[in-house]
């Protein structure tokens, strides 16, 4: 199982992608629990705000697109963890 976080937009318009192979993580059961507990089907469309980031989060079969202003709670926690694994902290 793989989770991919892609961030686009922002003032710079530079796209950055982070991904994690969940099965290779020492705490994979915690990852699986977190991913299954995300409100994948409860994301509503929101009006874009100029220069804010846009996050696309994929974990088959799920995919959501979130404006930066929608990223909080469990989504923020997921993004922070995925970035943390990629950035080595």
């Amino acid at each position: 199982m793989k989770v991919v976080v892609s961030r686009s937009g922002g003032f710079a318009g530079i796209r950055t992608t982070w991904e994690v192979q969940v099965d290779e993580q020492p705490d994979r059961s915690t990852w699986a629990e977190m991913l299954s507990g995300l409100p994948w089907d409860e994301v509503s469309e929101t009006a874009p705000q100029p220069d804010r980031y846009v996050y696309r989060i994929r974990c088959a079969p799920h995919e959501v697109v979130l404006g930066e202003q929608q990223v909080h709670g469990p989504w923020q926690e997921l993004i922070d963890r995925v970035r943390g694994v990629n950035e080595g902290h």
Partner: protein
Amino acid sequence: MTGSSDGFSRCTIVPPYLLVRLARVDDPRLAAAAEAARRSLMRDVPIRELRAAAHPSPPSAARPGVRGGAPPVRGRLDRAVSDAGGLERLPGRLVRREGQPEGADPAVNEAWAGLGDTHSLFWNAFERDSIDDRGLTLEATVHYGRNYDNAFWDGERMVFGDGDGQVFNRFTSSLTVIGHELTHGVTQFTANLAYEGQSGAINESLSDVFGSLVEQRSLGQSAAEAGWLIGEGLFTDQVQGVALRSLKAPGTAYNDDVLGKDPQPADMAGYIETEDDNGGVHLNSGIPNRAFYLVATALGGNAWETAGQIWFDTLTSGTLGRTVDFAGFARATSRAAVTRHGAGSREHEAVIAGWSAVGLGGGLGAGSRAWSDIAAGTGTASGHVAVDPVPRPE
């Protein structure tokens, strides 16, 4: 609750100004309440009334020259800079208002000066009184988040991160960024272009254009002397790049082994279809950016005086649809040039040539000739006129 369902304006349990304040809260713990407040506001009150509630006029004593019911003094600069203190909560702590002395924080001082320079361009060059043309207070928040590599416009204020120090410096360090963000406010109050796809890329391009013009006017640079860069100095010296974008040569602002190459196309042949970035609004904006650069440099002199005026006329014409595409926007600039300078004028021809060079001249040239013929009394009643001097929605 005894009120009807059609609005708190008649049954005000929560006053509008409190709803506005709540709707602007950016604290995750209050996300549900903020969203509910936004829904209430959008359902019940026109946006301009909300802004009036959010920004009530200060007492007359605080506005020199205003007495009692006298009309406010147009063109009066009013700024407010707040400090988020490294948190992602808005608006943060108010640290400077008009009339207060400069402090020691460079981010506050840069934002303060940048707001002034941007206000000066719109007022002195285009006679627009702040972003709403009614003297709205220009509000900015600095030190947003930790290592935050971004600046944005949230519909109410400009917000600036400090950068991470490795790739990005603080975002207030470039005047073009401040001008860019404030122009999003002007666009919101005028054409209100939808922030996705081609209309979103035009929205972005207008912010780059006027952001660049703010800097050019501040430095006293002619079109020929200007660098036409957006975000010059934002990258640290560890990045191989001079800026985030170039209006002169989109796609050449940076080429770094970590960040990659500046992906902006310079013409329609390079147009990028993507679902990211709200449909590539920061990518395809390179196309109208270059068109403006070509128009401005063809006309020479100060870019804000002629080319900038045509673009400003277009933005404020009232004829742009919210989802206007590149071709529609090009036609609108052509009409604006005709309205101000006449069909077949040097300015009109420069606009046509600029759009033609980026692959968007279709119909504009033929329209120019047809309209010139009509203006000269040699056209036919049945001739097609692509450049319509009569404003119509795009």
